[in-house]
């Protein structure tokens, strides 16, 4: 695919994700860029708030995930489309970088594209790694709870079961197999005051909730808290978990 064509494809595809039209990188000396024949952008990906671009959406989900004590609903469609976009942009940069005759203007544009790719890569990586951290930490809790599994991708669920498996195997080979029969399990329910052996997310932990629209939070004790549009409240995550999933509240 010649370099101009690759940017063409990129340009046409970018018109699908956001309304503005843009001619491609024009290769030095080649014909003038395409006229702006505005294509009607097809349906936006997912159901973002009206003016949120895919990257803005991912940034919101990234911040939500970084702050929430529990694991949030997966955004694999959005994530997949952004990964695609990064790959296409990187391929285009590779092609253009290989061409020795690029002008100074072209060189700067490549550097801008490269700078952005690394920024978006970082957001995607931090988002994914934050979810992985929670999945590792609550692997056995996730395995035991169907409802949690609906919030994660198949790859994450497989990772959770592999993780629970290698941990159980490790505990067994290092400790449990040498313990008396009565003690060899990982699911004791001792009648003493002792925390459960399965670590659970601390959903009562506080978060800073920014209301994107006027809404009502409900604390675990049943108290309701009015959240005016644009307000910022420090309160228990459990009180806003549903609102965060519904996109009415974001965690900042």
């Amino acid at each position, binding site marked *: 695919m010649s370099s101009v064509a690759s940017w063409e494809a990129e340009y046409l595809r970018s018109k699908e994700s956001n309304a503005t039209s843009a001619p491609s990188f024009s290769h030095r000396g080649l014909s003038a860029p395409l006229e702006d024949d505005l294509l009607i952008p097809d349906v936006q990906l997912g159901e973002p708030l009206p003016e949120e671009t895919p990257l803005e959406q991912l940034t919101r989900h990234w911040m939500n995930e970084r702050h929430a004590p529990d694991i949030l609903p997966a955004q694999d469609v959005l994530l997949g489309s952004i990964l695609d976009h990064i790959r296409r942009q990187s391929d285009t940069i590779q092609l253009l970088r290989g061409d020795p005759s690029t002008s100074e203007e072209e060189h700067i544009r490549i550097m801008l594209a490269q700078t952005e790719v690394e920024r978006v890569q970082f957001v995607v990586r931090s988002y994914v790694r934050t979810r992985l951290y929670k999945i590792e930490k609550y692997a056995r809790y996730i395995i035991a709870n169907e409802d949690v599994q609906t919030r994660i991708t198949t790859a994450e669920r497989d990772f959770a079961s592999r993780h629970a498996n290698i941990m159980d195997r490790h505990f067994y080979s290092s400790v449990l197999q040498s313990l008396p029969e009565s003690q060899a399990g990982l699911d004791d329910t001792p009648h*003493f*005051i*002792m*925390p*459960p*052996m*399965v*670590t659970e997310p601390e959903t009562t932990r506080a978060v800073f909730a920014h209301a994107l629209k006027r809404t009502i939070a409900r604390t675990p004790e049943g108290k309701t808290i009015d959240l005016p549009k644009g307000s910022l409240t420090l309160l228990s995550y459990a009180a806003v978990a549903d609102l965060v999933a519904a996109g009415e509240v974001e965690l900042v």
Partner: protein
Amino acid sequence: MDDYFSIDAILAENQRVGCRFKIDIADMGHLGGGGERDITRSNTLQLPIWLVYTVVLSDWADMIMPPAFGSKVRNALKADPCSVRLSGLVGAGGLWYVFGKTIMEILDKKQEMSDLLTNTFRKRLVQVIDQAQHFNALGPAGGVGPGGDSAQSFREGLDGTERELFALAQEGAKRMKRWYEESDRGRR
């Protein structure tokens, strides 16, 4: 704090509390770390918190209200919570609040102890963050924080939980300072 695998949670429950036994128990004398072979009735042993629950809730022993929560301390805390050196009551690194929570769980009327713990904690909180942010600005060398030695003695009097909060507040302030300083050099 109460995660099964949490090292800090386990260490917190190693703190010892005095228990006066109401029954004899053969060859358990060493539980209290002492030399005797058996526990005999009305013996008082210092037991780790994780064991106190078992013996007290089974009514084999009564927990002795430690001086750290005696009336003298309670009155001092009601008068001026910032003046009391909590670390002096439970030993440096000791956990006065965790200690109080344990006792609360065993007491019948829990509200009074909860109020004591909550009010003490909240009133000392502003002082903890003030010092952490100011102390940080001067840097560890600048030991004399606001109010000179009274600040110094307040810091020394922090219990383990407060010390952790002090470190959290300091870390937050340091991170901000680093970001401001770094961005000066980083970009030009």
